[in-house]
C-alpha cells in the first residue's frame, strides 16, 4: 500500500498520521513532514501509527533524529503501533524515548 504522512497542527500539537509502508524509498517524505512539523515549534509530536503496516530502519532513523533534533522539551507520542512495528522500535531502544499509547488522548 502506498505510503502517506499527513500533518495536522492542533494548537501546540503536531499530529502526523502514517499509512502504508515506510521504507528507504519514502523515508525522505516522512522526514520532510517531520521537518514541517518541527518548524511550527510544537510542544508535542503525536504519531498515529495504527495504519502503518511496515517500518524499516530508514523510518526509525527519521524518528530517532527527529527526537535528537527536537530535544527534551518536545514530547513524542507513538499511538497504535502494531506488533512488528513496535518490535522494531523496541529492538533499537527507541521505545524508551517516546510515550507509547494504544489510543490518543
Amino acid at each position, binding site marked *: 500500500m502506498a505510503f502517506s504522512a499527513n500533518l495536522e497542527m492542533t494548537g501546540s500539537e503536531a499530529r502526523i498520521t502514517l499509512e502504508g509502508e515506510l*521504507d528507504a524509498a519514502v523515508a525522505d517524505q516522512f522526514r520532510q513532514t517531520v521537518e514541517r512539523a518541527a518548524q511550527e515549534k510544537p510542544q508535542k509530536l503525536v504519531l498515529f501509527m495504527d495504519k502503518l503496516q511496515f517500518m524499516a530502519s530508514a523510518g526509525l532513523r527519521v524518528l530517532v533524529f527527529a527526537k535528537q533534533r527536537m530535544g527534551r522539551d518536545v514530547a513524542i507520542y507513538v499511538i497504535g503501533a502494531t506488533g512488528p512495528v513496535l518490535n522494531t522500535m523496541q529492538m533499537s531502544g527507541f521505545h524508551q524515548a517516546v510515550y507509547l499509547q494504544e489510543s490518543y488522548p
Partner: protein
Amino acid sequence: MIQHSLPASLAALSDIRRLVTQACQTAGLSEDATYRLALAVDEIATNIITHGYEEQGMTGDIVVSLDQTDKDLTVILEDTGVAFDPRAQSLPTAEDLDKPLDDREIGGLGIFLALAGVDRFDYQRSDNVNRNLFVMNLA
C-alpha cells in the same frame, strides 16, 4: 526456485517485499515471521541499492530468488555492486568467508534489525557477485 531480476533503485523495494510476502504466504509462515523476513530482506536490499550501487556512482540489478522446501523458505539476493558483507564492517577477504557468524561484530542499525529476525543468514562473494541468503524455518 523462482527468480526475478529488478533494477537496483529504491522504488524496487516495495516489489521485493511483495515477492517475499507472497512466498511466505504460500509457505504458510506466520504473520510475525513473514514480517521479520520481509524486513530483513528490505534492509539488505536497501544496503545494496544505496551503498552497493548509488554511493559508488554505479547502477545494476538485484536478482531475487525464492525457494521453498518442506523444511524452510529461502530468499537469496544477488548483486554486482561493491563488495559488502553485512556481518562485518570490513570488506571480506577469502579467509573471512568461512568464519562463523558469531565471531563478527554486527554493524549498523538496519543490519541489526535484519539479522536479528531471521533463522539463518549467510553471505558469500564470488566472481564479483554479492550473495545474501536468508532462511526461515517452517514449523
